[in-house]
């Protein structure tokens, strides 16, 4: 959504809502906010379980996000049968149903040409538009920029790509050559197959309804906006998890995107917490493994001195300022000693791509810092 200064702010999973009030009507918006999947089954938007009051307030706010200049001079007469027939003909000709689901219109077959070997397209077979340099990259770039410059009957829509995006697309298309297709398997580095992981059972059904995987990744499936949950059950304590699911608080102060609150019932929260604590365990170690008693006061010295953890984490809100990593004021309630110990040894092994460094810490230091962090049980402010 655009803010008062005209900058677009917010996430990139859903569509921009700056002018949504000019697009949708109140009745549809209310239904959509109640349960998006009832209208569009595959949507990434979670079922938020809003109360009627929430829905009314949200819909009221969103409907004010309208561009009145856009619709001010627009007066549409009721459509005549001839106009409707012409519209249907255009929808068929342009192949709208190739991407959109439109009732009464069949999805066209063989809609777009196969691009598997487009990088080997012989120039003799290319029909160049006037004024176009006779090279394949120029042809592909022109096709992407202005598909209709090759004929008004072209069905491909015109996308508003930036020049660097066109460059990137052309480069990708040029790599689609016959040589690349016939390369011996021994010379190829295959892409990792996409994960088909879906959480199962009652909790799995709930997680699909909440669309957890729109933002979180689990076992290779899901989004990248929120932390990977594949080992979450090893990391956190159940009591903390239940409280967090009921009312997600801010763990990472520097993040603008937040986990939403879902108005879950106690039963739903328990189902989710039980499943996460049981199913999402790392095979690397046992969360209940005993950690040898250690020196917490030495841990504190290491925390603030040798490792300067306070550069990124807030442990004492009156003293620490770094806000890249999660706050650790409640680390002792949220995490367990075995997780902290292994995290300090090699965080990347537990959650690949985590911002935490792979400290490769020695046993004594890791144990002492874990003991110090387990003492942090400040009440939630």
């Amino acid at each position, binding site marked *: 959504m655009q803010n008062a200064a005209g*900058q677009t*702010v917010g996430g990139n999973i859903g569509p921009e809502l700056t002018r949504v009030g000019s697009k949708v009507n109140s009745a549809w918006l209310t239904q959509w906010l109640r349960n998006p999947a009832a209208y569009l089954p595959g949507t990434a938007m979670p079922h938020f379980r809003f109360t009627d009051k929430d829905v009314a307030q949200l819909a009221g706010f969103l409907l004010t996000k309208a561009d009145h200049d856009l619709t001010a001079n627009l007066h549409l007469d009721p459509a005549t049968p001839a106009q409707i027939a012409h519209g249907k003909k255009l929808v068929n000709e342009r192949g709208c149903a190739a991407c959109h689901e439109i009732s009464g219109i069949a999805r066209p077959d063989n809609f777009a040409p196969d691009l598997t070997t487009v990088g080997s397209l012989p120039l003799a077979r290319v*029909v*160049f*538009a*006037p*004024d*176009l340099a006779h090279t394949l990259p120029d042809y592909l770039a022109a096709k992407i920029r202005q598909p209709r410059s090759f004929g008004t009957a072209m069905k491909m829509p015109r996308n508003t790509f*930036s*020049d*660097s995006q066109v*460059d990137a697309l052309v480069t990708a298309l040029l790599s689609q050559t016959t040589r690349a297709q016939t390369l011996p398997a021994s010379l190829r580095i295959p892409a990792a197959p996409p994960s088909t992981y879906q959480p199962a059972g009652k909790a799995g059904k709930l997680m699909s309804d909440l669309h957890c995987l729109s933002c979180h990744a689990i076992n290779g499936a899901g989004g990248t906006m929120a932390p990977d949950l594949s080992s979450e059950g090893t990391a956190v304590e159940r009591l903390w998890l239940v409280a967090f699911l009921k009312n997600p608080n801010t763990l990472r102060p*520097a993040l*603008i995107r937040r986990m939403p609150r879902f108005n879950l019932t106690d039963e739903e929260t328990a189902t989710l917490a039980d499943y996460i604590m049981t199913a999402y365990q790392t095979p690397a170690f046992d969360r209940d493994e005993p950690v040898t008693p250690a020196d917490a006061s030495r841990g504190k010295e290491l925390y603030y*001195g*040798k*490792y*300067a953890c306070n*550069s*990124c984490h807030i442990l004492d809100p009156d003293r620490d*300022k*770094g*806000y*890249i990593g999660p706050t650790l004021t409640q680390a002792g309630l949220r995490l367990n000693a075995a997780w902290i110990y292994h995290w300090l040894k090699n965080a*990347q092994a537990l959650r690949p791509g985590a*911002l935490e*460094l*792979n*400290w*490769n810490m020695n046993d004594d230091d890791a144990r002492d810092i874990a003991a110090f962090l387990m003492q942090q049980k400040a009440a939630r402010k």
Partner: protein
Amino acid sequence: MNRRMFITILAILSVSCRHVSRPEPSATAFGAAIVNISEDTIVGGVGAMPDQPLTVQVNDADGNGIAGTRVEFTDSAPGLTGNDGQFSTRIRLGSTSGRYTLTATTHDKTGRPLRTTFTAIALDYQQTLGRELSEQHCARCHDPQSTAGRVSNRDNLSVPPHSFSDGAVLNRIASPNLIAIITHGGTAVGKSPEMPPYSPTLSTSEINALSAYIRAIADPPFR
């Protein structure tokens, strides 16, 4: 009309079109000064066309922007300034890595050229890799600018980290020391422990790439 004939006609058309010269924008006003108002140095991979524009403003003697003055750029189409006196264009970086100096020229009413220059930096493969790693691991503390998606942590540290383009300071650190700081942390050379050790999080070649990137974007340039 068969296909061959169609192509022939197209070919003739395209040849004849090439002789039609497009009218170039001619100036309707003349300025007294030209100023580079681009926010940052343009940085990108070799041969790329960064989305970041080059922007100049043509001013009158009082420093107000003038519309309709003609601006010419090295290797880029000329244009006229808009109502705010500004003209923006985008450039394609050269195919050899290094620093490029580009000139924007306008003419005052006596026909005397007024110039301003821009620096653009084309990164080679290693430097581009370093740039990506820097975005991922370093920019949160070393880049003083916050963006909508990333808040800078720089001011939270007791010793503020240097911006990677700060050549005045970073050029004085010898390359082995620069690599030691990234690898073993600030304490390796008696600097702040707030700079953590990036080994083994990053491999030796990744750390070398970071160092190459830091050298490439240094201002003043690293020699």
